[in-house]
């Protein structure tokens, strides 16, 4: 059977499974729609959280980031996992005890202020919408690359699937679908990794292959990592195991921003509202991290081995020997296939019909290259994103593995999109419509409103998927910046500091986001609109060399400082609010779904 047919069958089968689950897990009440009736087992919730959390970016892009940034990419590995420690210790159990449906609802009640709630809703929607656009794009790309549909058709199919199970099932449908999606995506990620680790190091466990020795080829017996370091440095690239991202300080702040951002992303937090008890919220974060870690500890092996395979494909022998560079006429099939997508580009600069791939920006290397008769790096584009998708092909794995990888990428994108859409829809229907506009709305009408909000959110995400705005490229910076600088600090202070009051929370959030967004926009343009970069002549990372994506942690510090300072000079929170804080600090008396 050819690849296309198999891919259609595998992807089609997973879609049928998702729809089947959706029909089985229809939501009948608002409690089921928003928080799955608070009846999800902590292990099941952990698995769903893992699928919710691991997006198209984790699945497709991360290994590529690791492959090309080496040690520097550790910021993503630690940043996107360490946040769960913060969640489990600082937020999840208390928010579960509070026992409501949404994050803005907690902020509104704890800071006795509709304004604070509204600010939180705005942050939530901005962060979630920018995030969901990336998922929609991922779905469109996966379809168009592997199923030979157009990008638009792919997007509509993806929207249709999400529509069925998110609108019908709400959180309940999404949770059970996400469990299935987790299983699909983790198999899709680990199977090729096992094969590749076996090929290179003879060890079927990628985590051990990473620290293992090469078993085949002329370098058998050498440490895989040492070999990789040698291959890349011979061609003038930075040493894989030691290259840093910006500077050590930048890596520190970047990691902190991603951790705080993870703990502040609403679609992750609301997952902990769905478990039956406070103690389940604690352990469920641990289970989520177990399921996430299976992928995240495999990724460094995938990244490093994919890089080694890629380099070895092009540079087949000692650097400088003419015949050691592969002839373009002899490149493997996958090379040409990815060239067709534009994600891989080759230019024969010295006209020798062979490929030279090296770091031309390295002065020493450039000099050496000249003496070899090389006229510049000929791999003019190697996109990060091809690493995971091309991996099975590079390793020569059978077609069914490739088909599963496609289904896995789609599962990652769909599950995250659904979680984000639910966070948006519940903020609109529960916080804005029920909380602010029409408090007397009946449960049945609210359920209808939440379904309509979901449809609206899907349509909006689809629109942006078709017409990606300029700021889609800055998704990570905005979503994590907002979550880290506004939502996390306010939630944490709301629980751990009884004295932080309404004015403190509002000004803290506004100044935290303000400073973060200023730093992001000052050189990228206001909402990434070209020509509006108001400090265009300054270096993007002028503040101690901290890159804009890493700035959320600084925004969070500003938020904490401003909130505490403002609270000191304004009136203390009223008595009943201080009692509320005391109450959420103890597990006793956590009821099932409560709503009033």
């Amino acid at each position, binding site marked *: 059977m050819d690849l296309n047919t198999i891919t259609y069958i595998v992807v089609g089968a997973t879609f049928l499974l998702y729809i089947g689950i959706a029909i089985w897990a229809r939501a009948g009440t608002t409690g089921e729609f928003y928080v799955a009736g608070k009846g999800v087992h902590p292990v099941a919730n952990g698995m769903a959280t893992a699928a919710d959390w691991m997006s198209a970016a984790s699945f497709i892009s991360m290994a590529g980031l*690791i492959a090309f940034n080496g*040690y520097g990419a*550790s910021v993503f*590995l*630690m940043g996107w*996992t*360490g946040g*769960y*420690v913060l969640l*489990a*210790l*600082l937020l999840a*159990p208390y928010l579960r005890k509070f026992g409501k449906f949404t994050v803005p609802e907690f902020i509104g009640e704890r800071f006795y202020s509709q304004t604070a709630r509204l600010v939180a809703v705005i942050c939530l929607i901005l962060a979630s919408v920018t995030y969901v656009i990336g998922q929609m794009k991922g779905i469109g790309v996966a379809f168009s690359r592997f199923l030979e549909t157009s990008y638009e058709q792919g997007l509509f199919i993806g929207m249709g699937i999400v529509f069925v199970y998110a609108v019908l099932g709400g959180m309940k449908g999404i949770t059970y679908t996400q469990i299935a999606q987790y299983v699909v995506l983790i198999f899709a990620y680990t199977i090729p990794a096992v094969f590749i680790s076996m090929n290179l190091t003879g060890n079927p466990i990628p*985590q*051990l292959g*990473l*620290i*293992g*020795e090469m078993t085949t080829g002329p370098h058998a017996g050498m*440490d*895989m*990592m*040492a070999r990789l370091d040698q291959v890349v440095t011979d061609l003038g690239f930075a040493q894989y*195991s*030691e290259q840093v991202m910006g500077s*050590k300080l930048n*890596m*520190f702040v970047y*990691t*902190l921003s991603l951790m705080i951002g993870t703990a502040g992303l609403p679609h992750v937090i609301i997952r902990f509202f769905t478990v039956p*008890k*406070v*103690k389940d919220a*604690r*352990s469920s*974060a*641990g289970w989520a*991290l*177990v399921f996430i*870690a299976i992928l*995240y*500890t495999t990724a*460094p092996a995938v990244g490093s081995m994919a890089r080694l395979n890629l380099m070895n494909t092009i540079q087949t022998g000692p650097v400088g020997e003419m015949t050691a560079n592969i002839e373009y006429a002899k490149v493997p099939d996958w090379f040409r296939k990815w060239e067709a997508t534009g994600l891989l580009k080759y230019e024969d600069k010295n006209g020798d019909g062979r490929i030279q791939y090296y770091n031309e920006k390295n002065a020493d290397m450039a000099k050496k290259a000249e003496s070899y008769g090389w006229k510049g790096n000929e791999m003019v584009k190697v996109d990060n994103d091809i690493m995971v998708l091309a991996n099975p092909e590079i390793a020569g794995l059978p077609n069914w593995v490739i088909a599963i990888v496609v289904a896995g990428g789609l599962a990652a994108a769909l599950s995250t999109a659904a979680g984000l859409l639910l966070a948006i829809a519940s903020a609109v229907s529960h916080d804005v419509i029920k909380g602010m506009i029409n408090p007397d709305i009946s449960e049945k009408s609210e359920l209808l409103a939440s379904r309509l909000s979901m449809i609206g959110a899907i349509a909006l995400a689809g629109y942006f998927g078709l017409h990606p705005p300029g700021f889609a490229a800055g998704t990570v910076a905005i979503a994590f910046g907002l979550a880290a600088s506004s939502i996390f600090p306010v939630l944490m202070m709301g629980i751990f500091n009884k004295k932080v009051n309404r004015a403190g929370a509002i000004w803290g959030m506004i100044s935290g986001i303000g400073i973060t967004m200023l730093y992001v926009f000052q050189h990228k343009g206001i909402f990434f609109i070209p020509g509006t970069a108001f400090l265009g002549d300054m270096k993007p990372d002028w503040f101690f060399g901290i890159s804009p994506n890493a700035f959320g942690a600084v925004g969070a510090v500003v938020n904490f400082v401003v909130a505490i300072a403002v609270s000191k000079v304004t009136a203390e929170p009223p008595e009943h609010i201080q009692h509320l804080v*005391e109450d959420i*600090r*103890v*597990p*006793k*008396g*956590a009821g099932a779904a409560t709503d009033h």
Partner: protein
Amino acid sequence: MDSKAAQYWKANLRLLISLLVIWFVVSYGFGIMFADALNAIRIGGVGLGFWFAQQGSIYVFIVLIFFYAARMNALDREFDVHED
């Protein structure tokens, strides 16, 4: 807040802080600040600093969460603030 609840909260904070110190040391300490020095120690084919940054810190994070959950369950009972 009555004194028992205050004691419970204090015990919780003590536990939290010591676990967060470990959280900080394995990631920011071993994985970033002291990574170069630790790389002198090898674990298989990679340096210990590199290993903590890309593998070890994640394993420790998992242990921390489950340890916290277990300790807190015990504390909940000890101070009689557990659910049902």
